[in-house]
């Protein structure tokens, strides 16, 4: 009855989450350079990084869904899911802020949002870009999608 997850089938979402995260984290650097140089091209870099990062984040979200539907990911780490989602929403908000004209596209709101998203992503990224629940010393909060599927130890 219990359908075992095959470890040989890799998850497709983690690299996409990683690509998106790298672009979104990069926004902090271009924002910082803008705030120092006031050369508007650096804000243009930021908004393109945000745009590309958000497109990849959307694709990563679809990939995650696909991983769940294809039963490769019976449970996901709820905290990490909330963290990545928050970073994506902050970045979406940030894309609108970065679309303002002039200095206030970046300073202070845009820069603050870039930094907040980056802090979340760097923190989560220390354990890689997978949303697979991993065992820890304490009880891990998970979200189950397929009842009775045993959790795979990675």
């Amino acid at each position: 009855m219990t359908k075992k997850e095959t470890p040989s089938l890799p998850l497709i979402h983690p690299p996409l989450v990683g690509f998106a995260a790298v672009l979104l984290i990069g926004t902090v650097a271009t924002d910082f350079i803008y705030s120092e140089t006031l050369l508007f091209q650096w804000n243009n870099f930021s908004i393109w990084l945000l745009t590309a990062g958000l497109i990849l984040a959307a694709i990563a979200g679809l990939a995650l869904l696909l991983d769940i539907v294809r039963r490769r990911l019976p449970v996901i780490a709820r905290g990490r899911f909330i963290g990545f989602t928050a970073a994506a929403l902050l970045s979406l908000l940030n894309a609108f802020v970065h679309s303002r004209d002039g200095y206030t596209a970046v300073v202070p709101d845009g820069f603050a949002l870039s930094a907040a998203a980056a802090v979340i992503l760097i923190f989560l990224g220390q354990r890689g870009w997978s949303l697979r629940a991993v065992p820890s010393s304490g009880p891990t909060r998970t979200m189950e999608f397929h009842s009775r599927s045993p959790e795979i130890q990675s």
Partner: protein
Amino acid sequence: MNANLLSAGCAVAALILLSGCDEKKAADPSTQYGTDPVLPAPEQYILPPMRIALAKGWGTEQTPTVTGGLAIKAFATGFMHPRQVYALPNGDVLVVETNGPKAPIYRPKDFIEGKVKGLSGSAAPAGNRIILLRDSTGSGVADQRSIFIDHLNSPFGVALVGNDLYVAATDALLKFPYVPGQTHIDAPGEKVTDLPAGQINHHWTKSLVASPDGTKLYVGVGSNSNITENGMAAEEGRAAIWEIDRATGLKRIYASGLRNAAGLAFEPTTGKLWAVVNERDEIGPDLVPDYLTSVREGAFYGWPYSYFGQHIDIRVEPRRPDLVAKAIMPDYALSSHVAPLGMVFTQSSTLPLKYRSGVFISEHGSWDRSPLNGYKVVYVPFEDGLPSGPPQDVVTDFLTSDGKAKGRPVGVTLDHTGAMLIADDVGNKVWRVSAAKHTSDVAAAVLSNR
């Protein structure tokens, strides 16, 4: 976090609905007329409020509405984005069919804005040429039509001095030889001087007027951005009115800090230069009022650092307190986002007397304010060479009741009979506004002229 989620969700929803999240209501435009407009605190948006008047066009028998004592009729129709009208002394009328060069996409916003503006008819293909119209029977409708000058680079302003016809293309001021009665000019334009264009060319229109004595030409050169987002280097020579010496072609900046002086005209009783100026966007539905002002030689009017005197725009860094201190107040606010693109003083008009000592201003209207403002032609009365009362609606109903644009007024002028001509770049028509027949005003005018 909840607040952020909410904002983000709202931003997405707003983008789809093309309506702002901000619930704050726009003020009554009448609080922003005249010398002392009410200026609210600037806002910084997640998504600036916008409302697009979708381009619809006119029904067969439809016309704009005119106030009492006036009559309106289509002088000519079937244009490709007509934006200027200019009356030649012999009665012929020039219509400039024009639109801006393709705007580069530097940010995702440029792409989205381009699409949005396209909905409002701003991106319609243009002839980039000048059409000559002739009303040979005096019926108030043009019956002859020819291509007067073809293959121009986004032309806008036109001015005739003697037999020299000047055309302000977006990148150069050109001079053509003109013979009265001519219906076509084959001679190539001679370049008088280059004008700021370049790859960005954000405000591309170059308004043009000749001084009353014909020795100088004045060109309105708009800024290269909303508020310096393309960098200060792109603003070299822009947001200014240039003075060009006709004899030598030498030029200098006559006045600066005028974001986009899209209409220029000389006030006939004082001989002073006046301009209508389009102010900055995206800091609120009631900021910054567009204005009508006399143009003082050497004066600085604030853009980009400040507006209406010393109101600082926090979007511009580094700041320039030295320039802000110098910035002068424009003479007369027209209220926000009306987009005045044309003006003509009315002393030589044959419209009712109440319209003969002021200025007609065409308000093209814009999409970055809700509710919409402008989309009409107004009259500002003058006394002793200065505005003397609030703007009065003269030609209205360019919008449908559900907020679509039947037309949008751009250039205005008076023809040789003293009637008003209006270029309509969404309706693709030229309207002629004349005195309604048999009004007491007309009778009075006839008597007074005897």
